[in-house]
């Protein structure tokens, strides 16, 4: 997903980078290009228009970033607006209500509701140890209920075949069943329906009224074109949507639906469907998607956030270092680790470093449990070692491991991750962000954003 839009935006911003400074003229030209890029990516026209307007205004009023070149400045603004367009942070399902928590799935025909019902069930059972019951009220599509039964079986969750052919009654029976068998969660699959089909929209409203679900999820195909807004709007008007699930992101969707739907419904995209298998469901992270869309981890965001949330002095130092292209050392890494909690953990930090998100398997993966042991390792080094990590060999490694209560492999891993980060920084200095993005870019692949 998104490849094409990313390439178009890249070209546009590269052209801007050559310019001296931001003027009304070059902003206007760039915005025309961005608008075309968005429309070709199937972003709905009203959404694209409003987006461009916000970026234009922000760009014109831009003085703070005066020392950046126009390309960088516009990228920073576009990035910020993209993030706010898609929602600020990942949002999860609300499962704290009194069980059984009801999840209602709704959407157009063929969007992927039934498949997603199975994936969600698997996710909740496997990751959150929930007892899940799935039921369908799709009395229209041939073999729809058989399909859910199979999918539930694959997911290892319970399935209930509600008697009768009145969807609202069937839903009520499913809820009774979930209560009786003390399930934590009831996932209710519904028939696909057109947003302009009044009878069917009345039916889904009645289902919602009868069940009072905690989560009402709009399942939408990421391939959807300009019409995504209309459908989303109609479902939003009919139902108290609590979230969106974007399916089929493993294809080459241009991503317009992702950008439009959240804007229209004002509800967060909670998951991405990334394949046909039962496990192909991923929590949605707007920030990462925006960065990928712009083809780079965003140093500017790192700096901005650092300034906002961290010790200003330290952040300035790091920024200066980055700009001058000085090598980062282990003391810098230690400072970062120490202040990380206020920035959303290691994952949050790394996702800001240029290129990290596109390294794929090679990217250092660090969870926050590891942070503590990393700190311990660095703390067990001498200042000389922190400044000269390449000098840390055999006996030094053993000493550091012993001092920090870790293994030599842990020390090795930290050093390797550090080298990778440093290499990133260096590349950024040499080629600027554009070159970096190119060198890391279109290679590798995998994952919904290739």
């Amino acid at each position, binding site marked *: 997903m998104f490849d094409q839009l990313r390439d178009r935006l890249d070209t546009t911003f590269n052209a801007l980078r050559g310019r001296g400074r931001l003027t009304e003229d070059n902003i206007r030209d760039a915005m025309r290009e961005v608008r075309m890029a968005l*429309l070709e990516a199937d972003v709905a026209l009203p959404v694209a228009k409003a987006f461009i307007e916000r970026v234009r205004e922000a760009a014109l009023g831009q003085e703070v970033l005066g020392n950046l070149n126009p390309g960088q400045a516009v990228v920073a603004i576009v990035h910020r607006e993209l993030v706010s367009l898609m929602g600020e942070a990942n949002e999860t399902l609300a499962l704290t209500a009194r069980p059984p928590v009801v999840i209602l799935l709704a959407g157009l025909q063929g969007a992927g509701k039934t498949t997603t019902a199975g994936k969600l069930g698997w996710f909740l059972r496997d990751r959150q140890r929930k007892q899940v019951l799935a039921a369908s009220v799709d009395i229209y599509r041939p073999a729809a209920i058989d399909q859910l039964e199979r999918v539930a079986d694959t997911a290892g969750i319970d399935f209930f075949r509600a008697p009768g052919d009145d969807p609202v009654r069937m839903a009520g029976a499913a809820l009774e069943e979930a209560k009786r068998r003390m399930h934590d969660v009831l996932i209710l699959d519904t028939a696909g329906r*057109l947003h302009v089909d009044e009878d069917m929209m009345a039916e889904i409203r009645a289902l919602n009224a009868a069940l009072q679900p905690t989560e009402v999820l709009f399942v939408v195909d990421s391939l959807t074109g300009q019409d995504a807004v209309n459908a989303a709007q109609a479902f939003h008007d009919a139902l108290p949507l609590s979230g969106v699930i974007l399916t089929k992101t493993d294809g080459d969707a241009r991503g317009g639906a992702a950008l439009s739907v959240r804007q229209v419904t004002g509800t967060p995209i909670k998951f991405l469907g990334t394949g046909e298998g039962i496990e192909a469901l991923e929590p949605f992270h707007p920030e990462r998607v925006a960065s990928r869309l712009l083809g780079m981890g965003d140093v500017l965001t790192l700096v901005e956030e650092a300034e906002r949330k961290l010790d200003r002095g330290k952040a300035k130092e790091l920024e200066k270092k980055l700009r001058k292209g000085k090598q980062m050392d282990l003391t810098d890494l230690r400072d970062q680790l120490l202040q990380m909690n206020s920035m959303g953990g290691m994952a949050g930090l790394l996702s800001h470093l240029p290129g990290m998100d596109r390294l794929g398997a090679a990217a250092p993966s660090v969870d926050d449990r590891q942070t503590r042991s990393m700190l311990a390792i660095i703390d067990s080094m001498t200042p000389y070692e922190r400044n000269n990590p390449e000098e840390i060999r055999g006996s030094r490694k053993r000493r550091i491991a012993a001092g920090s209560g870790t293994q030599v492999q842990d020390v090795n891993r930290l050093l390797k991750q550090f080298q990778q980060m440093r290499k990133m920084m260096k590349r950024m200095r040499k080629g600027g962000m554009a070159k970096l993005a190119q060198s890391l870019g279109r290679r590798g692949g995998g994952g919904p954003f290739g």
Partner: protein
Amino acid sequence: MSSANELSDSDELSAFHRLRRGLARTRAGLGRGLRALVGEGALDEQMLEDLGDLLLSADTGVEASRSILEELERRGRGAASAGEVLQILEELLYRRLAACEQPLDVSTAAPFVILVVGVNGVGKTTTIGKLAMRFRAEGREVVLAAADTFRAAASEQLLRWGERSGASVISQGEGADAASVAHDALQSARARGADVLIVDTAGRQHTHHNLMEELAKIRRVIERLEPGAPHEVLLVVDAGNGQNVLSQLQRFGEAVGVTGMAMTKLDGTAKGGILLALAAHGAPPVRFIGVGEDPRDLRPFEARGFVTALLAEPEG
């Protein structure tokens, strides 16, 4: 279950009305907008820009929209009245869409083999069911091959359509080899002297190389058994899918050689513009359009009828 007669009653009489009703949304979005705009009078810069936005938001795509506007500007500049501009627009749209009009004739071979392909959830199986109803109503012997052996309950879905239409369904159940189902079905169709064989396949994203390769294998198996077959490789696309349809066409074309298309869910979307985008890209003929879930709502694509229904005065 009802019989194939479902299709026949006063069918031709209501054809235009079904189309109109099915396209009501499209008309409300694109048709009425075009009509209203052009009705405002002389062609000027603003009107062209608004027209451009309308076309774009109807999924026409940047390229095709630009070319339509250029032609309209060139030919409409001297137009005396709004009516005349509208006529020029109608003619211009018709000429573009007519390039995609060429009905499917299944009487040229027996069994006439149709391989149906497309991305997930676009409406392949439903379209096959509707086609089976249509061919049965024309008095043809129809065999359906359940070669989607991947998706849960896919063959059950096809079996229901078999019951409803009176077509025989050949299936081997979930997890079977798709090419082998196609092979069996073709042999069975020949043995029965069937007129039409329609092969349903699993939906797949055209970006998955191994899945596209599997499709190519199904095609090869059919070819080997029956030279000249498949006589039609029908790509089913969802009218709501926007510009991605172009990339679907290209990739499925490369893998199995698409010879015709069916566009579903035109009733659901405000946008008929993707047809114009396809036409601009020299797509193979659009054989059928789906404008509803009823079997009668699958219609042969006719450019004239489509444009007329699109630009028709709003009802009531």
